[in-house]
């Protein structure tokens, strides 16, 4: 299988679409416009969901980017979202903490709940929501501030520390949990942008967990990193799931297989198949999933 060849660029997506059109005989996903005639294969729902999405549709202007997606994210699980470029997995991830609100032309329909409370009601405070549902981005994006200030940023905004000592504790704990503390403990006043790519990404993870979120969303957190840095982040994800619920979007199927308990496969805005990670990778039930994980796309 050639998972590595599933590229992150646009051509990969075009190829994937073409391949899907040819190979999924009997199921014409491109033309299945009406939402009722498609149902996600597998087990999208769990018993004790931390977050759950029901019938979510996302539009960018005229473009229908996410079609009728329903999915649960279980307590303290790592769920991986995979699929070819442009399939909507990142868009879906961003609906979970309303990061799509920043984009003026973006419109979200459907229900998404966090601990059974709807996060899309008009009374929902996005500031509090994002404190509970943190995010780590594709490219490490530390602020051009010191390492200390980077981690302290969220805690300051939300007033989590009453004293310098408390803030020091939050910063140290977060850095420790992101397994970065030992590398930077003598340089906390150095700029965060001076770290290596992998260290920067762990700094961003430390920054995200400093506000004690309940859910962490990771949007391809390793795509800009080398294999060694990637391995460290993956170890970290495994440790973090003790305390947090994690949803991770990834292009690497090995990564999905290594870090996640459940895997969701997206294709052209639809959630095709969800299941236990080992089931999805060893015996995919949907033709499109099988095509993707056996490397017939791209």
């Amino acid at each position, binding site marked *: 299988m050639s998972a590595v060849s599933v590229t992150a660029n646009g051509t990969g997506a075009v190829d994937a679409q073409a391949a899907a059109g040819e190979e999924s005989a009997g199921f014409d996903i491109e033309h299945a416009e009406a939402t009722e005639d498609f149902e996600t294969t597998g087990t999208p729902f769990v018993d004790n969901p931390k977050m759950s999405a029901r019938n979510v549709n996302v539009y960018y202007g005229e473009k229908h980017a996410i079609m009728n997606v329903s999915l649960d994210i279980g307590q303290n699980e790592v769920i991986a979202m995979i699929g070819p470029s442009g399939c909507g997995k990142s868009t879906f991830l961003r609906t979970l903490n309303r990061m799509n609100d920043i984009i003026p032309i973006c419109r979200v329909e459907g229900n998404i709940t966090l601990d059974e409370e709807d996060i899309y009601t008009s009374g929902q405070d996005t500031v509090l929501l*994002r404190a509970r549902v943190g995010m780590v981005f594709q490219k490490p994006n530390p*602020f051009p501030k010191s390492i200390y200030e980077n981690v302290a940023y969220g805690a300051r905004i939300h007033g989590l520390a009453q004293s310098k000592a408390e803030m020091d504790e939050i910063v140290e704990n977060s850095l420790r949990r992101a397994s970065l503390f030992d590398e930077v403990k003598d340089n906390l006043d150095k700029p965060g942008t001076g770290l290596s790519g992998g260290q920067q990404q762990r700094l961003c993870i430390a*920054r995200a967990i400093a506000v004690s979120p309940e859910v962490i969303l990771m949007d391809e957190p390793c795509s800009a990193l080398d294999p060694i840095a990637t391995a460290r982040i993956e170890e970290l994800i495994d440790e973090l799931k003790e305390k947090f619920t994690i949803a991770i979007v990834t292009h690497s199927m090995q990564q999905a297989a290594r870090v996640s308990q459940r895997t969701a496969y997206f294709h052209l805005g639809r959630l095709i198949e969800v299941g236990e990670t080992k089931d999805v990778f060893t015996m995919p039930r949907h033709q499109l999933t099988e095509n993707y994980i056996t490397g017939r796309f791209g």
Partner: protein
Amino acid sequence: MPTTTLVLVLATLAVAGFYLGRNRSLALASGAGGPQSLHSLPKHYGYMAAAWVALPALLLLLLWTGLESSLLNEMVLAQLPASVRQMGADELSLYFNQLLSYAHGAIDASGLDETQLAAAQYYTEAASRLAVLKTALVFLVGLGGGALALRKIAPAFRARNHVEGIITATLFACSFLAVLTTLGIVLSVLFQAVQFFQIIPLSDFLFGLEWSPQMAIRADQVGASGSFGFIPLLLGTLLISAVAMVIAVPVGLLSAIYLSEYASRRFRAVTKPVLEILAGVPTVVYGFFAALTVAPFIRDVGESIGLTVASESALAAGTVMGIMIIPFVMSLSDDIINAVPDSLREASLGMGATMNETIRKVLLPAALPGIVGGILLAVSRAIGETMIVVMAAGLSAKLTANPLEAVTTITVQIVTLLVGDQEFDSPKTLAAFALGLVLFFVTLLLNVVALYVVRRYREQYD
């Protein structure tokens, strides 16, 4: 032949050179196995020939035109009798100018002596001989250059690289010209300023607290010697610039933040051009506005609350100047805020920060060096601004920090010193150049600092 005709003929020759060069390369190629055997495309050989026709000839023409008149003068001077050449410098200059004017047909022969008439005659003849020589030489160089280029054409000759070299040289020459122009301006100001400083000591100028440049024509007149302390002018300039910045920086910066971070696309599409119209209003129109609307308004308001306000106040001039600079500050800040990567916005918003917190704690700190650089550029514009202050700030060189009084600026004084007929050996007139030099250095310094700051900032995200 007049210079324009000469240039036109050269252009025609260059076009001819292009076709000759191209055809010659094709002809050579057909003997050696078709166009593929040429190193470069046929048009490159054409360009090369055209460049060799035009460029050296144009260069010669340029040099010649620049040197012709002084050469002529030297020739005429050299053949004047020794008795004339021993006259004093002023007298000789007058004598010489008379004969030149006669030679150009500006005055008639009455009042000129025999020697002048003869010299004028000689001048006219020499001029026409030189003109013929010029035309001949320019053509010779043009044709010679073209012939050389045509001879050089061979299938193995790398015309493409050669043309590239010619273009690089031309580009270099153009940028060098800009440098030379700057140097020329600085030198012309510098020479007059040095003359000024020979009469008025530099320390009096730099540290003097009084500015009253009236010089007497006769020694026994009242106020026979002016005082040339430029501190009141500098303070006036800084006062008005400060008022301008107090208006322009907050309004410009905050509107830039609103437009780049909050405004809807439609609002932005309407507002930005409207604000940019402000930048297109001629400064003289701002001047009317300042003198006829803002200054009386400020005076009336001031008087109604019991303040004494001059009808031409620093506040009025500074306010209008500030309005003028708003679009400048705004568009610079807008560019710089937009240059902050979106990933930082997302990072902050993703932490649960509000837009406002994101702007204050992430965007502005990241953009600050660039914004400071932009503001310094705006200050140097304010300091150099002339028309508004001429019309609205007044002429009295008061040493004051009160914006309600009339002050004067460096630029206003330069204008008043040089307007009208002036003698160029009086310190009063020369003072304008000294002021110009100071102004030049102040704005240069500000620009250098600003560019340094802006550049430091740029490196941050690369």
